[in-house]
């Protein structure tokens, strides 16, 4: 893991010229300030909206459509950022002065809310029904019941999600460039990208990356200090019926739920409207689409498996020292994707590994890049399960794989499935790795969308985006169906 992070950096460092001086311009310092400001604010807003959404989804999840929303919200990550941004421009461009800080914040909230909401929703699902029933028996009102049972869980998820989203917004590229409206609103990542790719100036890139790391680690340590105390119950018979009463409060809650959903899903509505056009049929009968679907499926599946495998082992190895594993995993986000990809590129050359089939390189790199997300989906449940099961496992003398299969797996199943699905489709949305290591015979749906856009074929690009959405929908649905069918016995 550490090697995976450091090797590409070493590779880039081999092009580093120690003697060169570094000019720290006014522009760079203003960008640093703005980046910190923008990313903290984006994270805060995403967490507020995301927690609210998760709470509402959990409260009303005896409605079928609410369940569907809860399950499918992660699909939003997979849309290529640019398509999401087109959706945002179409929906909100006419009502807001969209270019500038407002646009960046709207964009980041729409992009990240589903992530927050999905993680918290998952955790809220873990609340023991006993606890809920207890709180109801005690006659607690909505607010006090919320403070007693939901809030502690939401609160526990906040620090890691806050760091994750701050980092994502910190290195945000396309949303900040387009919605920012000009170089006044930019991120360090844009400058790093420019230095690495355009001006071949590795020195500047590494210096900027160095600043990025210092700032992000400071943020990390400030917000992560008082984290970790997972001491609530877990119960597997989690089918609690929330009885829905037609009260004003409940109606209001549902209204808010629908409103947030509408805002968050607006890019999807945009794609459905735009994707059904006269090119759709041509697209569906073209060979390149089906090749892309096939490649995407392979990359998704194996990257998903690989990242689950890595995260699980990392959790097992380091769950007593979470700070280390967490800081390693989160740093994957802030090690600029451009630098990492170029670093790996140089590295593979030096090791003479460019003859490896590209699909393997793409899968391996993708599974690294999605680790922070896989981790966020898996870790909370993992910590709870491990903690609870430690005594049983020790008394039964079960260790390693046998312990995993007999004791932990049945209880982790849900989180594993979710983490697998999300990591998979995040690999599908990758553009950096595939554009560095993809070849003509190896293009994914996301890359096909960009290629089509790059040659005037906007309608085709929208149609392929729609196909990508449907692909992810089916992928999610099938993964859940297949994996949930295999009922494991709970010992």
């Amino acid at each position, binding site marked *: 893991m550490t090697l995976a992070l450091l090797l590409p950096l070493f590779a880039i460092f081999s092009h580093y010229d120690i003697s060169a001086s570094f000019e720290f311009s006014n522009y760079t310092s203003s960008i640093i300030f703005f980046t910190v400001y923008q990313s903290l604010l984006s994270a805060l807003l995403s967490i507020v909206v995301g927690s609210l959404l998760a709470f509402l989804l959990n409260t009303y999840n005896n409605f079928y459509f609410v369940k569907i929303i809860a399950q499918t919200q992660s699909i939003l990550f997979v849309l290529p950022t640019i398509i999401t941004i087109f959706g945002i421009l179409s929906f909100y461009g006419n009502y807001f002065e969209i270019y500038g800080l407002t646009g960046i914040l709207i964009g980041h909230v729409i992009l990240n809310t589903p992530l927050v909401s999905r993680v918290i929703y998952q955790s809220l699902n873990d609340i023991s029904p006993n606890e809920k029933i207890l709180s109801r028996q005690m006659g607690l009102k909505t607010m006090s019941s919320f403070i007693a049972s939901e809030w502690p869980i939401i609160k526990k998820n906040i620090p890691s999600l806050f760091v994750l989203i701050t980092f994502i917004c910190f290195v945000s590229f396309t949303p900040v460039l*387009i919605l920012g409206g000009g170089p006044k609103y930019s991120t360090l990542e844009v400058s790093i990208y420019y230095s690495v790719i355009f001006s071949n100036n590795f020195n500047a890139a590494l210096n900027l990356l160095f600043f990025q790391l210092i700032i992000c680690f400071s943020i990390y340590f400030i917000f992560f200090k008082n984290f970790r105390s997972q001491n609530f119950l877990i119960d597997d018979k989690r089918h609690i019926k929330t009885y829905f009463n037609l009260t004003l409060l409940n109606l209001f809650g549902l209204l808010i739920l629908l409103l947030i959903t509408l805002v968050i899903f607006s890019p999807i509505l945009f794609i459905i409207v735009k994707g059904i056009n006269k090119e759709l049929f041509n697209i569906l009968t073209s060979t390149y689409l089906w090749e892309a679907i096939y490649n995407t499926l392979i990359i998704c599946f194996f990257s998903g498996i690989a990242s689950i495998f890595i995260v699980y082992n990392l959790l097992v190895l380091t769950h007593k020292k979470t700070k280390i594993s967490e800081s390693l995993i989160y740093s994957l986000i802030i090690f600029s994707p451009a630098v990492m990809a170029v670093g790996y590129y140089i590295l593979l050359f030096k090791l003479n590994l460019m003859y490896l089939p590209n699909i393997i390189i793409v899968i391996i790199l993708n599974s690294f890049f999605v680790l922070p997300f896989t981790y966020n989906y898996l870790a909370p449940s993992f910590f709870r399960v491990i903690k609870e099961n430690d005594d049983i496992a020790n008394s039964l003398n079960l260790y390693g794989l046998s312990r995993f299969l007999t004791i932990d797996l049945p209880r982790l199943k849900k989180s594993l499935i979710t983490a697998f699905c999300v990591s998979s489709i995040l690999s599908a949305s990758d553009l950096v790795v595939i554009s560095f290591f993809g070849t003509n015979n190896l293009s994914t749906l996301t890359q096909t969308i*960009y290629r089509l856009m*790059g040659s005037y074929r906007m309608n085709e690009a929208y149609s392929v985006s729609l196909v990508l959405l449907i692909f992810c929908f089916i992928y999610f649905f099938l993964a859940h169906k297949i994996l949930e069918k295999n009922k494991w016995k709970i010992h």
Partner: protein
Amino acid sequence: MKTKILSIIFILITISPISAKEVLVVGTYDSFSAEWGPGPVIETEFEKNCNCDVQYVSTSQAGTLANEIFLKDKDVILGVEMHEFDYTSENWNIYDYGYFSFIYNEETLKDIPNSFEELINQTNLKIVVQDPRTSPVGLGLLRWMKLTHPDNFPTILKKFNNNVLTYTPGWSEAYGIFLEGKADLVLSYSTSPFYHQEYEDEYKYKAIEFTDGHLATKEIVYVRPDSEKQKLGKEFVEFMMRDDIQKIIAQMNIMYPASENDNNIPDKMRQLKKPKEFKYDDFLEAEPLIKIWLEVASS
């Protein structure tokens, strides 16, 4: 597990197909090599005579074609812009060219500016252009503006910047925003209307002609000096200039063919008005222009 992975990797390496044919690796950008681009047809045509195997390795990251690191194992590079080319290769050709230009929709924009001055004075115009740090097209605009206005470039740029809706990472995003009707003008090429006419039968998109003249952009194909396949590479570079290939390039790459004649220029492209070319002597370096742009546009 490690041994498993290693053994899988080993198997995959050993079973990779061994071809007796000479392989020519062509590094290019992916709208060229895409299924709907000119790449596949050119590959088939060239392979008919060469007893070789043309393999495209394409990038979608603009700018990488000028980045040494990505060029290492390629024999031929196709699509590097003339400003980014270092001219160390002996075998190179310009295979197509075009002019930077602003595109508008004639149904929605009636008052057409015909110079940078007129453009900046129409303060209600919403323009979408590319970020010069991430897009060669955006950089092209700075060169064009600086060349036509050597004395008051920063002033013009500052006023122009007030009309700019946003700077996008690449050409695709800017053109997409324009097609969505979110901007009045987009920076593109004077041949862009040809695509809509030829493939969509749509005539409402037009290129503006500036009286000052337009900056030409030319695309180069060359053999890498350290490639071992100089002869084959040279054949490929020369092949690109054949009349039928030039026609395919113009038709599918939406640019003017470099060795233009009546046989190789598509009809609808011939009917487009070719803008006046702005002639100049020295290429302008990118860094100083970007520095000025950053100062002007971020204040």
